[in-house]
């Protein structure tokens, strides 16, 4: 490459520039491949969105989407800082976290028990699956009137709606996980003297665990989704209630603070499920003697 340029100095300059650009481009791509490069891309992406939002709201963009009444990023930030100094904001957040924790806990326990029974016994699967098929497609919002009628307190009706959202993915994933237990492993356990309970505990549950965890991760997302539906209609505290009342009180920046808080809480709780279950799935990682 270098020799060529020396041989032909007349065309050397543009060639040189092209090579430099190519080298810089490939260097840049390499940079994006590193772990901090990849995070840089994510940060830039978020900043780009905030910039677009800023431009659209300050210029009062109105074409298909109307940004005239959308609060500006800076206004939202100011309100956010303001809210961080108040007790009620935290009260809203903790009310929601409490509901999700209770509902998700109940959904995990009952979902795993029902899912295991369905996966193990054909009769249970045949008996329970009609309920799942009928109730699963019903959105959380549609449950609200009935939940209010059925439960004595607002708190329990909201928890019920949240529970339903988390329950279905957990129960279905558990069932599929249990059904996919390798036959060889069940046979091996039986030949080693294990009874049905031991097989359930030592073989079926661990085999289904990756699938159960996947169901829990999805369930956690839907739990927040459903919780918000419940809180919008009823309740005195909760981040969904906060968001909806802000709309009624014409506090537009508050709406966006509420939305972003919901997003953040959903992401954090999903991460909590993923990392909290990681010690149980340590065996899946390939570390050790091979390679």
């Amino acid at each position, binding site marked *: 490459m270098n020799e060529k340029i020396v041989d032909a100095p007349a065309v050397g300059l543009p060639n040189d520039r092209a090579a430099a650009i190519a080298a810089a481009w490939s260097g840049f791509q390499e940079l994006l491949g590193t772990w901090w490069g990849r995070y840089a891309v994510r940060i830039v992406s978020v900043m780009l969105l905030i910039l677009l939002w800023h431009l659209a709201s300050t210029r009062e963009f109105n074409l298909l989407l109307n940004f005239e009444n959308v609060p500006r990023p800076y206004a939202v930030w100011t309100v956010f800082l303001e809210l961080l100094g108040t007790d009620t904001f935290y009260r809203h957040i903790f009310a929601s976290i409490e509901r999700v924790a209770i509902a998700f806990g109940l959904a995990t326990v009952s979902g795993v028990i029902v899912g295991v029974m369905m996966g193990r016994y054909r009769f249970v699967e045949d008996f329970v699956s009609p309920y799942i098929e009928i109730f699963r497609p019903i959105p959380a919002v549609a449950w609200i009137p009935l939940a209010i009628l059925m439960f004595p307190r607002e708190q329990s009706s909201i928890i019920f709606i949240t529970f339903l959202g988390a329950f279905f993915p957990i129960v279905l994933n558990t069932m599929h996980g249990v059904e996919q237990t390798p036959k060889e492993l069940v046979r091996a356990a039986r*030949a*080693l003297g294990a009874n049905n309970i*031991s097989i359930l505990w030592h073989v079926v549950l661990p085999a289904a665990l990756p699938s159960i965890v996947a169901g829990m991760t999805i369930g956690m997302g839907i739990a927040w989704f459903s919780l918000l539906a419940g809180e919008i209609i009823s309740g005195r505290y909760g981040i969904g209630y906060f968001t909806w009342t802000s709309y009624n009180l014409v506090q537009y920046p508050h709406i966006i603070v509420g939305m972003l808080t919901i997003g953040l809480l959903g992401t954090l709780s999903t991460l909590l499920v993923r990392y909290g279950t990681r010690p149980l799935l340590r065996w899946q990682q*390939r570390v050790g003697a091979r390679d």
Partner: protein
Amino acid sequence: MVQLAEKLVTPFAKSAAESGNVREKTKRGVSKAPGTGRVKVSEMSIVFDTGGKKHVAVENANLTVEPGEFVCLLGPSGCGKSTLMNAVAGFVKPTTGNITVDGKPVRGPGPDRGMVFQQHSLFPWKTVRKNVAFGPRMTGHSVTEANSIARTFLAMVGLSAYESYYPSALSGGMQQRVGIARALANYPDVLLMDEPFGALDAQTRSMMQENLEQLRREFHTTIIFVTHDIDEAVFLADRIVVMSASPGHLIEDIHVDIPHPRTPETLTESRFVEIKKHCLELIRSETIRAFEQQERR
């Protein structure tokens, strides 16, 4: 790296020297009750009903395996040899006839019959030690006892250093050794091995065969070993029972009168070659017959 080490070191050679003090450590050591493990299969047939079509997997099989005997079930693939073994294990119910172990009829799988599978039968979520300790735990031993039994048998297969590894971190040959240790940890009267080395590469495979030949002298148990590999059968077995293809029945019972211990040199002895030739001819004509049958269908 470890795979290489595995090929260089014969694990059982070391354990033969160790087994003396291993026996002192645990009450039973690695010896099992002598004179048990007689397997009797009488006039047994197994018929599978696959969507209305009847498929005869095993037809009128009669077989007696003496205590401590090593019997290979040899035959082309699909001849029903694994089905016959699964019936002895208790996973498959005979359609007619019966199976007894030491006079007791087989009613289902049980810890008196240890089972070694072809591959992927270790519990991936249990460490090597917990895999081996599983049988003792299930048969009523305390955690401490089960762990001590597990360590004894891991030493016997030369894998003491790997007791806290998960199976996915081990090579195929090491996994099968853990599988053998796990089956033996229940002190079974009968060890059933269903093509245990079938998925291994040629070098590891012959290594494992030599290991098993040595292991037998430490642990005197009846072994029924399913294979379609003639060399493997002649090298390991006291008796080779040749099975024919569909419908599977036993066609010949060959006594392998080559003295133990057998070594790699055995493979070139004239008696070995003679028996191998005989088996080859049998299997070849059976395979041809099976092919012709399939074409006619």
